[in-house]
């Protein structure tokens, strides 16, 4: 068998090309999403009639103002092009509900949600991998069975039920140590009151950890049966090092893919959890915007959520490749 020697640093150009291709695909995906979002929100039915309801006939001035703002008279294509042009320039339009620029209105909620998701990820990732390692170490023995049963039960419980239970335990019925709702003063951020973040983060961690943990455990079990782990043991490598260096390194990639999907899902707004804790996040705002027929806000939030999905998955793919030598060297040579 002929084996190409590794190219080392000269693979920079190849990496650039790979990244450019993936970014191009990401932009293409985002564009397709924009078409779907626009068609679904603006092009179907008469938004002005939907917004004004019974006032449609009586409040002529408001109707004309809305029609002008939404460009009802123009063709769908030109409205889409206008909207897309705005998006590219970073202009999300003006809210129909309060006539404020959408950008300033959603920026704080988007930041709130991202902080919530990042905090959850920081807690969840080590926790999930830790549980998976313990579980794999005791495979099919009592501790493993107990852990797997608990994880499966947690995965089966809806996240708002977990939230209610946590509230009951830590802020109302049993202990009274943590606030049950997030109170945010105008102009402040939820994390100004760190205690208030604990329960929302805990709820999301409990919601996501079981999936990640189970996938990582399954992969770990497979890797622990491999010849190279056997060789490491026969070489006299201590079991913790075998687990950390030889097994985990090769089991991490499927974990990353699941984590990416779960984080993107969280970023999409866990409406029920946000509502439960009155957390000012994307999910809650999206629901409000849909209820108010605030089309520009719905469009903007949808695009941002899609963007987060694409970025998170791109990062996950990149990490997966960086952590798999075979894939990594395939690109750079």
């Amino acid at each position: 068998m002929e084996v190409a020697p590794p190219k080392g640093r000269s693979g920079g150009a190849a990496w650039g090309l790979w990244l450019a291709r993936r970014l191009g695909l990401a932009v293409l995906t985002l564009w397709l999403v924009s078409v779907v979002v626009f068609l679904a929100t603006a092009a179907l039915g008469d938004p002005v009639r939907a917004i004004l309801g019974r006032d449609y006939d009586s409040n002529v001035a408001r109707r004309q103002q809305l029609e002008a703002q939404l460009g009802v008279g123009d063709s769908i294509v030109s409205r889409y092009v206008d909207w897309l042009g705005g998006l590219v320039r970073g202009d999300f339009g003006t809210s129909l509900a309060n006539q404020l620029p959408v950008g300033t209105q959603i920026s704080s909620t988007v930041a709130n949600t991202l902080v919530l998701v990042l905090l959850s990820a920081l807690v969840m990732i080590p926790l999930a991998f830790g549980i998976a390692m313990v579980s794999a170490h005791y495979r099919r023995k009592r501790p493993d069975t107990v852990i797997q049963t608990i994880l499966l039960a947690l995965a089966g419980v809806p996240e708002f039920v977990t939230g209610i239970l946590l509230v009951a335990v830590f802020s109302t019925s049993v202990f009274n140590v943590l606030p049950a709702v997030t109170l945010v003063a105008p102009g402040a951020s939820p994390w100004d009151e760190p205690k208030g973040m604990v329960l929302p983060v805990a709820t999301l961690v409990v919601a996501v950890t079981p999936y990640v943990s189970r996938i990582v455990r399954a992969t770990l079990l497979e890797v622990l049966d491999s010849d190279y782990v056997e060789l490491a043991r026969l070489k006299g490598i201590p079991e913790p090092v075998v687990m950390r260096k030889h097994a985990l390194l090769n089991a991490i990639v499927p974990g990353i893919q699941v984590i990416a999907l779960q984080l993107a899902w969280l970023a999409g707004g866990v409406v029920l959890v946000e509502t439960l804790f009155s957390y000012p996040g994307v999910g809650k705002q999206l629901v409000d915007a849909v209820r108010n027929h605030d089309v520009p806000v719905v469009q903007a939030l949808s695009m941002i959520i899609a963007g987060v999905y694409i970025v998170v998955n791109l990062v996950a793919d990149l990490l997966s490749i960086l952590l798999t030598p075979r894939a990594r060297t395939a690109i750079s040579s």
Partner: protein
Amino acid sequence: MTTTTSESEHQVRRTAGLVIEGLGVSLTGSHVDVVDDIDLVLKPGEVVGLVGESGSGKTTVGTSLLAYSRAGAEISSGKVVLEDRDVLSLPWKEVRKLRGEEIAYVPQDPASALNPSIRIGKQLVELQQLRGIGTSESRLQAARDGLTEVGLPSDDEFLRRYAHQLSGGQVQRVALAMAFLPKPKVLVLDEPTTGLDVTTQKMVLDTMAELCRTYGVSALYVTHDLAVVANIADRVAVMYAGQIAELGPRDTIFANPSHPYTRALLDSIPHLSQARALKGIPGRTPSPGRRPDGCRFNDRCAFVVDRCRTEVPALRTVAPEHEVRCHRVGEIGTWDINIGTVPDADPDRPREVILSVEGLNVFYGRKQVVHDVTFDLAKGEVVALVGESGSGKTTISRSVGGLHKEWTGSLTFEGRELARSARQRSAEDRRRMQYIFQNPYLSLNPRLTIEQIIKRPMELFGLAKGKEATDRVVELMGQVALGPQMLHYQASRLSGGERQRVAIARALAAEPDVMICDEITSALDVSVQGSIVELLEGLRLERGISMLFVTHNLALVRSIAARVEILQAGSVVESGPVATVMDTPREEYTRTLLSNSPRID
């Protein structure tokens, strides 16, 4: 370090050796023995070959020396004594310290035994680093020296490689270097050359033998191939069904094999010097818990008497250092290496060409892998394509079979030009040319029963259906020596040899005129290889089927083929009748291949 000091060091080291006493391994939670009653001594600096078919427990014995058993089994009795310490009763921490440093292990499958995510330089020094032996510079230097010793480059670029950037032989030599790095006293090698071609195998074996000699290491070499052992071992232990059946110095084992099982194994090995009618061993190795009473070999033995079925034989000393576990030792005559020898295929036999390949060039994308290959195949003839890995032999057979279509040249079947890919060929052409794959574990659909698998080609080509097809399936299974009770089995219940028989029966079901056999015995035990070859030879004689036989085993070629094409880097370097090419090779490359092949004759 100068040579003199290192030599004196080795002389000091030549005191160790390892003693295995009454070793037994059983399935966890039951009293079913996987291996039992193993007594074996590894003298200092000695290589002992441990030989047996799959399922004989040889690997289990090998890893027991490191106090390790695979999941589902545990070491239940016995001692492994290294320098007055019983490895099996040492505290866990000391066992771990002993592994690698004093007893090292070289794994079976080179491709999967190195961690794919860790650079080899790091893997080489990992143990020393964890134990805090030396400084990082001295460890790095030791790794470089180790790689040089096994004949590999030792520059930074090589140390930075991952396992997938090495060839099979290189990976195996890295594994050897890794095992030798801590200068162990005992080495366990678990079929370290299975799957390597003869040239690489020779290189790995030579490296191993030299390192063992240099460092006075005792080695246990586990393998299923007696031919390999004949070239490197000082003593040989033949294992059957969890016990040692025969043990003795190498020359005694090969000159005077006294256990019927050892003889049967030797009968299944092809020779380089002369064609043989190879024979397999009927039946299969019984799994733990299903081993017969009395002598465990009694149901497959040609010399069985009533006593063998009731009385358990003990390992008896028949000559100095020569022990045999057989009631009838001494009663069953002597063994002659020339039993089963048959005349080579007649080079002057008239040939009626059925398939001819002319000017074949094969490409993978823009890369040309086969250059201008021309050969032909006559009716009822076996032509062997021989070469190292990467010589293009499988690529050629895939192109001929229509599985790879990026080729130019001409392929004529009974005077008609064949299309490039199997899809473009007529159903009749496809039926008449059948392909049998290397790995029977992957080539049978695990969801279908054996009946469905063999019936499929008949339905596909409209040869038979319904009851008639089932009858044909039973008949074909009879021809490949499978019982009709297997009709409704799924492939997972069959052993490797049985699976390959099913694959052959599937090919036969299409009533082909040409069979392309792509390394069909290389994943199998030698004894199973013997019976498969016996089967193919019978089919060739009875049905006049022509075969294109791809292999890297030259000895096998001598016994099965009439003509041989020696391939190197995608070109034919020498071709002709088997006896001519192998007795009077013209090319240097052919001579190298022949001298690298392990032989017992």
